[in-house]
């Protein structure tokens, strides 16, 4: 297997660099060539979309792949072009990669004098049968094979570390935005309620109790906050597509940057409606405490 330290390079060193960023898969997991049948005798290779664009490769092309030192170069036929799995840890770096059959990788990278059976791989990905307990399976493997470390893919989230931090950062920004919105909301409701001072005063004078007026205000608040929430969600759904398309274009990735999931939508509504209603009711209550005659300016 390619040593970890040599797994870097630049696009100008096409072949050496391509091997350097190899993501080796077990032969059995390679998808079948989609667009062309490989020529007999030439091993096949999959090329990432970015690498294919950078090197102007198409299905059926023959590429020469060699380790970083340039030795043992071999010809491969491009069997397909694939979209790399979005990787948050490589945001901003185009993924120039080839996928080779594991025996081909070992033939390219193992020392010529290496004894048979000395080859090694970085990792083995295992897909369990539906319903199987991944944690129990990994424990079983760890117990039976002490030299290996097995863990469920749900725990292998180290690469997502930066994005967990960004998630916390965005949450903090969201909190500040909510605080700012709340202040403005209270200011607006104070003004809007004040504008209706005379109407409220007249309602009180004709006999409506404070609680009745408050209920009316509450219902109005719910309706306005609900309409605002729906509008906000619609706006976020529209902006979701725009923002994703922009950042996907900017970073040449299939990553989703903004995703309005049902839980996010519910959270937004659960924050927005009580906030809007509370602001309305608090502002109204401050007004309703005053004398009805003063409210009606009589």
């Amino acid at each position, binding site marked *: 297997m390619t*040593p*970890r*330290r*040599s*797994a*870097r*390079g*630049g696009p100008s060193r096409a072949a050496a660099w391509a091997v350097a960023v190899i993501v080796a898969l077990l032969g059995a997991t390679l998808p079948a060539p989609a667009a062309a049948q490989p020529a007999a005798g030439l091993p096949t290779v999959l090329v990432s979309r970015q690498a294919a664009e950078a090197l102007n490769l198409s299905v059926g092309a023959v590429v020469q792949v060699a380790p*970083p030192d340039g030795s043992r170069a071999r010809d491969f036929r491009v069997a397909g072009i694939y979209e790399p799995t979005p990787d948050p840890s490589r*945001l*901003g*770096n185009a993924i120039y990669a080839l996928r080779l059959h594991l025996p081909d990788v070992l033939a390219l990278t193992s020392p010529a004098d290496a004894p048979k059976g000395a080859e090694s791989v970085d990792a083995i990905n295992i897909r369990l049968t539906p319903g199987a307990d991944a944690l129990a399976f990994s424990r079983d493997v760890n117990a039976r094979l002490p030299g290996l470390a097995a863990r469920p893919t749900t725990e292998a989230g180290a690469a997502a*570390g*930066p994005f967990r*931090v*960004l998630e*916390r*950062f965005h949450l*903090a*920004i969201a909190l*500040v*935005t909510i*605080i*700012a*919105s709340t*202040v*403005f909301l*209270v*200011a*607006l409701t*104070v*003004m*809007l309620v*004040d*504008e209706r001072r005379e109407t409220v005063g007249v309602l009180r004078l004709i006999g409506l109790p404070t609680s009745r007026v408050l209920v009316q205000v509450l219902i109005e608040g719910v309706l306005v906050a609900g309409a605002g929430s729906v509008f906000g969600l619609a706006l976020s759904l529209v902006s979701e597509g725009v*923002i994703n398309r922009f*950042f996907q274009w*900017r*970073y040449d990735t299939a990553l989703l940057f903004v995703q309005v999931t049902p839980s996010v939508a519910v959270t937004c509504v659960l924050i927005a409606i009580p906030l809007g209603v509370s602001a309305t009711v608090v502002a109204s209550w401050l007004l309703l405490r005053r004398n009805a005659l003063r409210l009606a300016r009589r």
Partner: protein
Amino acid sequence: MRALLFAWRGLVRQPARATLGVLGVAAVGALLFDMLMLSDGLIVSMRDLLERTGFDIRVTASGDLRRVGDRMRDTRATMAAIRQLPQVGTVLAIRFVEAEADGPVALTLEGVQGDTRPWTLLSGRDPAGDGEVVVSQALATAMRVTAGSELVVRARCASRDEVLPPARLRVVGIAEFPFELVGDPTAGGGMDVLDAACASRTDESDIILVSALDEVDATAAAIRAAQPRVNVATNEQVIGRLQRNGFTYFRQISSVLSAVTLAFALLLITVLLTVSVNQRLGEIAALRALGFSRRRVVADVLCESVLIVGLGGLISLPLGAALARGLDSILKTMPGIPGEMYFFVLEPTTLGLHATLLAVTAVAAALYPMQIVARLPIAATLRNEVLS
């Protein structure tokens, strides 16, 4: 000036409304201030960090400045060739190795070879003999070691899963490592320390730092000509690369959030002023009837907007600075970020841009209510006021 005083009295007359408006602008302004600091913060901080190290040029095998790039072989020969160039001042080669100390505490062993040291000594002395190291304050705290203590580490030289026998190092000083990563404390010594920890002698390095006596670009070109197999980058080129790839996300996100924040502030101040003006139409018409000119009442509205935004903007500066500290501490937990780097950096231009954007917002937010006031029919408004 009179209009400003008049607007001030108008705000004072409605303290709750004015206070809420100012606080709202302060919160939005604080967020805007932070986003402006964030847009270039990392770049400014990185440039500062690169310049503080005193080296102008970075020589690597692959151009990758992270510690996972290819290593350069024949370090001694490469350094000797670089040193022969008349434009070159000091040359320093560094090799990084991951290690683990009891605890377990993950750390980086930094082996150096050359004319100077990449760290700043805080206490004790520089390593001179075999097995001597200086440690960062973070490592000293984590391992509770001081000058004279022993530090036992297990290096991982070839692969992450490698288990080598422990190496016993002697701490001779505490030093500041400018590029020490958060959560990854550092110990530094000679290359022989790394060779001993790795139980193998190599002539490899991750990076060679060079200071130029002459013009930096010309020196870099000379190194490139002398050593065509290596990647040579000046500090400016490193910054340029980071601007293109590494840190653009924060610039983009700050641009988006700045735009959203400004739109939010604009919308809400417009609504505040419009509702306020609508509530005072009778009063404004009366002032016009008393002899106040159209320009004067329009100026009153503008001044009211300027006062709300101005006061809010002033409050937003300390608020934004405090918020930036909190946000910076969140972002600093991101792996691979040097502890001396900051995401939010205040520059004079940031203050200027913040003030300009808020001023534009104040004027833009006042446009619609100013139009209402300017077109106010005096007689009809007064008549309606009397009838209502």
